[in-house]
């Protein structure tokens, strides 16, 4: 329990720093901006209570907002992400499997499940984020291009970090 809290705290700090000081400066062809920080919400343990999940999502979002000068924008997107996460997990994972599988990481859940999970959640988050930021339907085609390219970049980084911290013995 204490170990899980510690690991998630470190993950929070590292992801926020990485997002704010490195990834914030990266854009490919005015189209693709990665938002890797949402990996924190994706990797919270299965047994996190819903209240705690929403509170953490909100805190993460407002922290990123403080650095991006957009109060409320990332918080709103993160809360939506937390909701989609609850729905996705309740549909795809059996409840009695929780004892052996504490966290939805790549090394525990396998590539196929993790890839779908990351892609669906990232698409929801990015679509909501970009549309709320622009608040404008006139450039829909360009907007959808931005959402898809950014989501691909983000998921790519997520898989990379998943492979980087891959632990073989956990996989049964």
């Amino acid at each position: 329990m204490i170990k899980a809290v510690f690991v998630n705290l470190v993950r929070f700090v590292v992801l926020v720093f990485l997002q704010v000081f490195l990834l914030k400066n990266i854009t490919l062809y005015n189209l693709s901006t990665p938002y890797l920080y949402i990996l924190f919400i994706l990797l919270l343990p299965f047994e996190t209570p819903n209240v705690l999940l929403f509170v953490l999502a909100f805190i993460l979002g407002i922290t990123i907002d403080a650095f991006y000068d957009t109060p409320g924008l990332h918080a709103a997107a993160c809360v939506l992400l937390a909701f989609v996460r609850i729905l996705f997990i309740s549909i795809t994972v059996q409840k009695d499997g929780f004892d052996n599988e504490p966290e939805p990481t790549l090394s525990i859940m396998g590539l196929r499940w993790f890839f779908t999970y990351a892609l669906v959640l990232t698409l929801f988050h990015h679509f909501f984020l970009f549309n709320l930021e622009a608040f404008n339907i006139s450039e829909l085609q360009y907007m959808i291009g931005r959402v898809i390219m950014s989501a691909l970049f983000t998921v790519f980084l997520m898989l990379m970090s998943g492979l980087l911290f891959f632990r073989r013995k956990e996989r049964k």
Partner: protein
Amino acid sequence: MRNLLIFITKYNAFFLFVIFEVFSLVIYIKYNSFQKATFINSSNKVTGDLYTRVSGLYEYLKLREVNDHLARQNAELRNQLKSSFYVDTLKKHKITDTIYKQQYEYIVAKVINNSVNRSNNYITIDRGSKEGIAKGMGVISDQGVVGKVIYVSDHFAIIQSLLHKDSQFSAMLAKNKEIGYIEWNDHLDPHMAVLKDVSNNAQPKLGELVVTSGYSLFPAGIPIGKISSLQTKSGGFLLNMDVKLSVDFSDLQYVYVVNNKFAKEQAALEAQKKE
């Protein structure tokens, strides 16, 4: 009542979602325009300090370019010195000149946070109200117009960059002084902007210089960019054209905040007229 409680606990995820989502959207809508002061931005103590430290690391990588810029500007300024002109009269008068009064004052500041890839871009600088910066002042760099100050704390200030969908500055063609206004275009390209509402008889040419008009926050004649293409579609009285910006926003290091000393007087007078 009991059934209601059971219903709520069963679908608690949805109700929690609604509560938190409404809360964040209220924050977003209420504070996004910076009209009201809020502590959730990059000019507060924690984020401001962190940005200052990290930009201290980055600036070592750019020392060479900054040096080049400074040397070039020094040479330009040296050309304007009195001592670099040859004086061909022997008689010298000493006159205390009362005609000139300084109207514009420049405060140099370092950029500690910057973005170019979002639809609303802001820049944070390391000077604030203690150094005399106030809301509404214009900001330029040695290459041209950068934006305007929208939020000030004691030691930091936030600039709404020209790359912002609400940014609009009065501009004119350098040659024939035809007035228009400059705006960022819709494609989020950090090198391009649009010059709008120029009168039809201006006859602009490709590559012509666009400068500030002196009607807004900046002194007249500060460069903005060069005309890169003429949008021929509009057949009305007013022309629009694409402008390639002279400032490289992705590589801003030092900026100057322009303090127009007569701005208050002008604003007061113009407000009076409207009544």
